[in-house]
């Protein structure tokens, strides 16, 4: 017998700040106040709820059903429903992490420690969680697209980007991390096992697809690279109309490598002169 194709459900979980756990517990007993609190929070954020495409709007929200988060001591988690499109939103209070039993303050401390350079093992020791739990927490965040999150923050898609790759190792394998950055924001951080143009095109294509989905008319106007062939080719393939520039600092750093069999002071002097030449050209 053929299994029927299961329809995947949209993730409509929303995190709501209830200020304190006590307030949340108090609101649970009053359905109207609970929904009003959720609505007030959504309105103050300035975000829209993700209704179904068919929703004509104008409906209201109602409390739908609830379950208990057993691993967190039986915290009730409520769902609310749009009365027009029947979309159901799971309301996670701010002190509960999606699908995690660790407390948010523990997760926050561990993530901050790992972000500031401590290894996963040491973060896990100081925060009393397992390294794998921390790894899974980072991965759970990573299932959300960078483009989606950044555009929710009101950032426009970048017309000029920096593209480069970094090599690293996973056990004995050499791996590459193609990166797209604009200013101080990372728009794409990929992972490939080859340094080929095809691999980089596939990886950076995720950014291009996500950006085109968000804004179909999106075009990159300029891309700065260090001149690595695979990165340059992948960018040309993905963004055919964009101008490709070469990093001037890389140029200054590479000049001494082109000068063979000369004394170090002469090499340094030529590098300084070349730096001045490019600086004056700006």
């Amino acid at each position, binding site marked *: 017998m053929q299994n029927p194709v299961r329809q995947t459900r949209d993730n409509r979980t*929303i995190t709501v700040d209830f200020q304190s756990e006590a307030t949340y517990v108090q609101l649970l007993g009053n359905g109207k106040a609970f929904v009003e609190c959720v609505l007030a929070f959504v309105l103050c954020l300035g975000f829209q709820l993700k209704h179904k495409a068919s929703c004509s709007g104008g409906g209201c929200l109602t409390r739908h059903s609830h379950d208990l988060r057993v691993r967190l001591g039986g915290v009730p988690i409520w769902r609310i429903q749009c009365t027009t499109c029947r979309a159901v939103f799971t309301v996670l209070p701010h002190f509960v992490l999606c699908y995690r039993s660790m407390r948010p303050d523990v997760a926050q401390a561990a993530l901050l420690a790992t972000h500031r350079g401590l290894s996963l093992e040491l973060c896990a020791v100081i925060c009393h969680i397992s390294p794998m739990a921390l790894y899974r927490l980072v991965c759970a965040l990573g299932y959300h697209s960078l483009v989606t999150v950044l555009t929710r923050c009101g950032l426009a898609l970048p017309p000029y980007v920096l593209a480069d790759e970094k090599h690293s190792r996973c056990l004995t394998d050499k791996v590459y991390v193609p990166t797209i950055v604009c200013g101080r924001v990372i728009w794409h951080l990929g992972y490939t096992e080859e340094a080929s143009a095809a691999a980089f095109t596939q990886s950076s294509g995720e950014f291009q697809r996500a950006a085109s989905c968000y804004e179909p008319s999106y075009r990159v106007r300029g891309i700065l690279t260090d001149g690595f062939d695979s990165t340059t080719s992948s960018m040309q393939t993905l963004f055919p109309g964009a101008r490709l520039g070469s990093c001037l600092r890389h140029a200054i750093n590479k000049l001494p490598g082109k000068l063979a069999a000369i004394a170090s002071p002469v090499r340094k002097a030529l590098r300084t002169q070349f730096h001045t030449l490019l600086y004056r050209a700006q």
Partner: protein
Amino acid sequence: MFALGQRLRHFADHVAHSAGVANGERVRRWFQDKKAGWYAVLEDPQMPVTSTLLDQAHNAFERKLFAMKGFHHPGGSQQAFLTGLAHLYNLVPYQRRARHAGQCGVEVEGGRLPTRDWFLNLQILTSGGFQ
């Protein structure tokens, strides 16, 4: 900017004079290969000039990429792990002695954040139910 080609030619002549003809010729060929990229940078004032900010991001990931060694397995989520780290890079505020102390990368670039608490922002922004 329009004199760049001429300046590069003069510089290659200068290299040939001070460091030998072979070096001068090598530099001249290198300039020929690369100058289109430099022109592209210098012609458009909005184009970034150096990849310093990207190098800073890569330096920040050095230690975390090292951590990947211990978590590599056939069914691993390397891509998700890296994207998760990128979210932290974008949303965790800089430390108090940093240039943009108290602000995160998104704020520095002009983005708006839902709350003052970076971790709550992370939870809200990675919720599936908002758009």
